[in-house]
């Protein structure tokens, strides 16, 4: 199986640093290496691009520069926003209730669980079969005690895009802070924090061709949250630590490009996604996970009955295709992904999941290649699967979930 072709179809996991981003970063490692907090020229030479980067990121989100805080990653942004806002709300207003959704990224879910141990109560809104939060259910869940609502913009596994503007409006009307994890949405969805009533927004660099290790948090002016890290005046005194200037510049370069080219990206990726969905739907006893309509342009998530995701990934890898799965074996735990369970799938079906996610470096030829290879791999695994044997003989049936 010495296939030459390589198809990287895991852009939701991470992306390569683009040439443009790399070139933008390089001067800050050996030439403009000064500390932006230093008064002399070398420091100030680093300070100006840092502040330009802040302005650029702000512009991409419809925010003001002083509302952007640079962090080390999306998970840090989520942790800071949620813990910082929840604790500030408790201290100032005595509020101890948080609302989130059942299928958030673990950076949000585990943060909420940590706050539960700290005395907060958390409501996990259902996301239904289509992977979408219902605004009316958010409205019903808000109480006098609600300190914060945090709902992801787009889901990392099944790619569903939430009705963020509507959720934000409800929060605004009810006077509750609204945070969204937009790590997967940036560059794929038009974001405007003001128009969409977003109080806080997390984003990450490495999903959009900036390096790993840099992210940002938007905090609307006037929203008070506790400091993330004490120790210096950086990031308006709220997140200490000498700024990672090179990567911050990389992040800004990446988000500018991602935002400027968003319409082209959507126009290019959507037909690729749709061709793959149509092709995979022809495989017997398969299902698309999550709403087809409210979906990231580069996300395809499927379940195939009778097979297990890890062996599927290994065989795809042998054919040069990189994908991911929410099966228990790939998560390193005994349960399949909480996202797939949250949309009502039984374990037996969720184990057979596959996520393929596409970006700027993929082509329609990649899609054709996947469609050429994948059905044979599934057939091969099904032929040796006693579960598939039982399904075919009608001893077990999961068709109600298809």
């Amino acid at each position, binding site marked *: 199986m010495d296939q030459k072709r390589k198809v990287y179809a895991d852009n939701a996991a991470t992306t390569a640093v683009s040439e443009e981003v790399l070139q933008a970063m390089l001067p800050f490692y050996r030439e403009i290496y000064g500390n932006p907090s230093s008064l002399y020229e070398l420091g100030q030479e680093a300070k100006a691009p840092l502040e330009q980067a802040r302005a650029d990121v702000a512009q991409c989100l419809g925010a003001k520069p002083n509302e952007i805080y640079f962090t080390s990653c999306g998970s840090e942004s989520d942790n800071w926003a949620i813990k910082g806002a929840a604790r500030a709300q408790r201290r100032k207003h005595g509020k101890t209730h948080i609302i989130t959704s059942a299928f958030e990224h673990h950076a949000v879910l585990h943060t909420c669980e940590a706050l539960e141990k700290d005395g907060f109560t958390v409501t996990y809104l259902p996301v239904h079969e289509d992977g979408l939060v219902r605004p009316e259910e958010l409205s019903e869940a808000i109480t006098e005690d609600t300190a914060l609502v945090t709902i992801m913009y787009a889901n990392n596994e099944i790619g569903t895009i939430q009705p963020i503007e509507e959720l934000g409006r409800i929060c605004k009307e009810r006077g509750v802070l609204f945070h969204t994890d937009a790590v997967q949405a940036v560059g794929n969805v038009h974001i405007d924090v003001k128009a969409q009533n977003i109080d806080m927004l997390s984003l990450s660099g490495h999903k959009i061709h900036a390096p790993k290790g840099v992210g940002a948090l938007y905090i609307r002016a006037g929203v008070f949250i506790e400091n993330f890290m004490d120790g210096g005046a950086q990031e308006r005194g709220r997140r200490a630590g000498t700024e990672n200037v090179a990567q911050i510049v990389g992040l800004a370069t990446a988000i500018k490009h991602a935002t400027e080219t968003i319409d082209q990206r959507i126009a290019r990726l959507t037909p690729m996604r749709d061709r793959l969905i149509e092709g995979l739907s022809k495989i017997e006893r398969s299902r698309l996970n999550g709403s087809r309509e409210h979906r990231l342009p580069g996300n395809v998530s499927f379940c195939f009955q009778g097979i297990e995701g890890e062996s599927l990934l290994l065989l795809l890898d042998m054919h040069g295709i990189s994908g991911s799965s929410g099966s228990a*074996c790939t998560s390193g735990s005994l349960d399949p992904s909480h996202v797939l369970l949250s949309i009502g799938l039984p*374990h037996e079906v969720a184990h057979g999941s596959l996520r393929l996610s596409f970006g700027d470096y993929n082509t329609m030829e990649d899609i054709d290649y996947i469609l050429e290879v994948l059905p044979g791999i599934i057939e091969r695994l099904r032929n*040796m699967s006693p579960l598939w*044997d039982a399904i075919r003989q009608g001893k077990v049936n999961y068709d109600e979930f298809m």
Partner: protein
Amino acid sequence: MAYSEKVMDHFANPRNVGEMKDFSGVGEVGNPKCGDIMRMYIKVEGDTITDVSFMTFGCGAAIATSSMATELIKGKPISEALKLTNKAVMEALDGLPAVKVHCSVLAEQAIKAAVSDYYTRLGIDPAPIVGEIPECEECGCSV
């Protein structure tokens, strides 16, 4: 998590895979909820396992341990097959990641289940010969 070359070889080129029609005994262990099922067929002549095959729903390690287990018992007397431990399967594969030890336990169970079935079909109580089929400690799923 990285698999050894031997695991990848048995995963990519599984030995003795597929359904067997004229089997003497068949055993199935694991369950779909946990994400792995192993079915082992044996053909017995005299006291010897002359042929063996498997079908597995599961991860790479589950398929590789099934494959290796069939190799280790093929042509062997039943008494020897019953002595095969999950450790021996793991060692033959040059080890497994800690989270996959469970798969080797399934392979050991599957052989015992197939032998039990063989004796049951002969009208012989398998319990004194096969003994207890160990429950997998990893998830405690019923066989």
